[in-house]
């Protein structure tokens, strides 16, 4: 059967001018709607602005920022813009420090969310004939239900396998003929490892074709290794629970940047220190304003995620601009000897070496000679040697390539496989900062 390459052909390919007109209309509506919340009324009063001041898209810069702290301080329902009886779902993120954050949805919000995810899945080639397996955690974690409803909107047979029990995941993939899988990248690697242990060849024994990976920052090198191992095309997914969850931005078949749905969001990249907007192409913090949400619209929400907008049009024909691969969170940035370093830069360099496994630990310490970085990295399971020269040469090559990437010279410490074991369930700890701060 012949399908359109687009899930919402009109909305995905409209001329920019029309898209911007739609954005302004939705922005103005959203800002007026925000006045239903005491939280926004106060903020507007402090800035001395009213909804009528928003006359162009650039006026978004006049709006107040919203932060995670705002959500915590107004826990649980302080930012709701509709009566509780109109809300049909609540998601909440874990509250490791203080209150958790709560996000409310109306029936329409949930429909729009499902549509956004369906667009993403359709974009990477999912069709009603496919079998979709979701290995994300269900419950409060938005990637569970978020992908579930999106996949159902596409019309796929959807398997809510949820997280964990890798042997059972592999059995489902084989027995149900799963063609499209969603997993966080470290778990996709785990699935491959267990397949190998169990003698399952993903190319021969499964129908896997498409893998959606997100929720953890990962490098292009890690993507390529996953694609090669599992014999699939892997597409990068970006979501944030405060916006709704998955479906915010997603790669198209070009695998060059993630289209962010601009009929859902106004996108800004700002300098996280000066809070000034940055032009397309420059790296900064992603700031999003929701423009089609009812229950809990967010104005200029500071995601803390670092990325840049890729200038230029995409050959896939979509009018929505693309975000570059996420560089990690502004909170993850390491500043060592005045140099800004992201763990993902180190990961992508380490993954260039076949002799190394995927687990590593960056340790920052204050020593006599100043602050230092040591990287413990595991040797690959099938790498062993009788030759010291080979080990020392490997250490030297890794150090040299890292220096080219991060501009300082780390101390590389090779460790046997299994030393830095990462558990299935949790996101890996990659950085230990033991520096003495003055």
């Amino acid at each position: 059967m012949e399908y359109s390459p687009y899930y919402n052909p009109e909305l995905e390919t409209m001329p920019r001018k029309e898209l911007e007109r739609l954005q302004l209309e939705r922005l103005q509506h959203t800002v007026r709607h925000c006045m239903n919340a005491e939280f926004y009324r106060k903020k507007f009063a402090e800035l001395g602005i009213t909804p009528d001041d928003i006359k162009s898209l650039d006026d978004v810069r006049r709006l107040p920022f919203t932060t995670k702290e705002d959500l915590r301080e107004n826990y649980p329902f302080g930012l709701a813009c509709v009566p509780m009886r109109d809300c049909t779902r609540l998601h909440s993120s874990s509250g490791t420090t203080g209150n958790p954050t709560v996000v409310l949805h109306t029936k329409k919000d949930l429909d729009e969310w499902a549509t956004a995810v369906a667009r993403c899945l359709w974009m990477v080639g999912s069709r009603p004939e496919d079998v979709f397996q979701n290995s994300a955690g269900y419950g409060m974690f938005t990637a569970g239900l978020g992908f579930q409803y999106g996949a159902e909107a596409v019309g796929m047979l959807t398997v809510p396998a949820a997280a964990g029990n890798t042997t059972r995941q592999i059995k489902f993939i084989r027995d149900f003929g799963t063609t499209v899988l969603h997993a966080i990248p470290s778990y996709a690697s785990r699935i491959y490892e267990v397949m190998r242990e169990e003698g399952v060849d993903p190319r021969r024994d499964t129908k896997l074709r498409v893998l959606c990976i997100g929720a953890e920052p990962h490098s292009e090198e890690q993507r390529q290794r996953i694609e090669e191992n599992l014999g699939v095309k892997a597409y990068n997914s970006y979501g944030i629970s405060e916006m709704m969850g998955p479906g915010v931005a997603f790669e198209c078949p070009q695998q060059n940047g993630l289209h962010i749905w601009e009929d859902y969001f106004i996108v800004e990249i700002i300098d996280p220190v000066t809070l000034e907007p940055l032009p397309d192409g420059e790296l900064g913090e992603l700031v999003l304003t929701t423009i089609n949400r009812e229950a809990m619209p967010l104005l200029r929400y500071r995601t803390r995620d670092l990325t840049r907008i890729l200038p230029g049009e995409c050959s896939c024909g979509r009018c929505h601009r693309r975000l570059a691969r996420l560089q990690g969170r502004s909170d993850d940035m390491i500043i060592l000897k005045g140099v800004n370093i992201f763990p993902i830069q180190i990961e992508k360099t380490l993954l260039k070496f076949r002799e190394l496994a995927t687990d590593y630990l960056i340790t920052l310490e204050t020593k006599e000679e100043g602050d230092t970085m040591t990287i413990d990295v595991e040797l690959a399971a099938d790498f062993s040697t009788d030759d010291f020269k080979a080990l020392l040469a490997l250490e030297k090559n890794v150090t040299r390539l890292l220096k080219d990437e991060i501009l300082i010279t780390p101390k590389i410490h090779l460790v046997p496989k299994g030393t830095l074991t990462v558990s299935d369930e949790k996101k890996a700890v990659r950085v230990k900062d033991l520096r003495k701060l003055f």
Partner: protein
Amino acid sequence: MTIHQLSIFLENTTGTLIQVLRHLKEAKVQLVSTTIADTAEYGILRIICSEPLRACEELKKAGVAVALSDVFALQIDNNPGAAADVVELFSRAGIGLTYIYTFLLRNKGILVFRTDKPELTAKTIEDNHLPTISEEELTV
């Protein structure tokens, strides 16, 4: 002329050696000779043992990074200068030793080594009729 040797990459920290030795004990593998080459951070543990192929599999199963390599093993007399005479032959042939270690077995000196020119080494051993020792003989 060559025998199997296990090489195991270790971190140079307390407790890493005993983990490997424990696995070998559980597998009822008998050690014939061991040596560790070390830097400040790493060590390579080299082991000559009974049933090296099975020992290697057992260690792999236990998640130990182990390499199986072929090394030369010669028997020499337990006299002063015996090792020097043998090494002299290789040196003259332009062969470089990567590493060498020795131990006594039934009052014979055993020389275990690796070189940068394995084929030439084999030829030198044959041409000079140097007495080799097999794996079976080592573990009797």
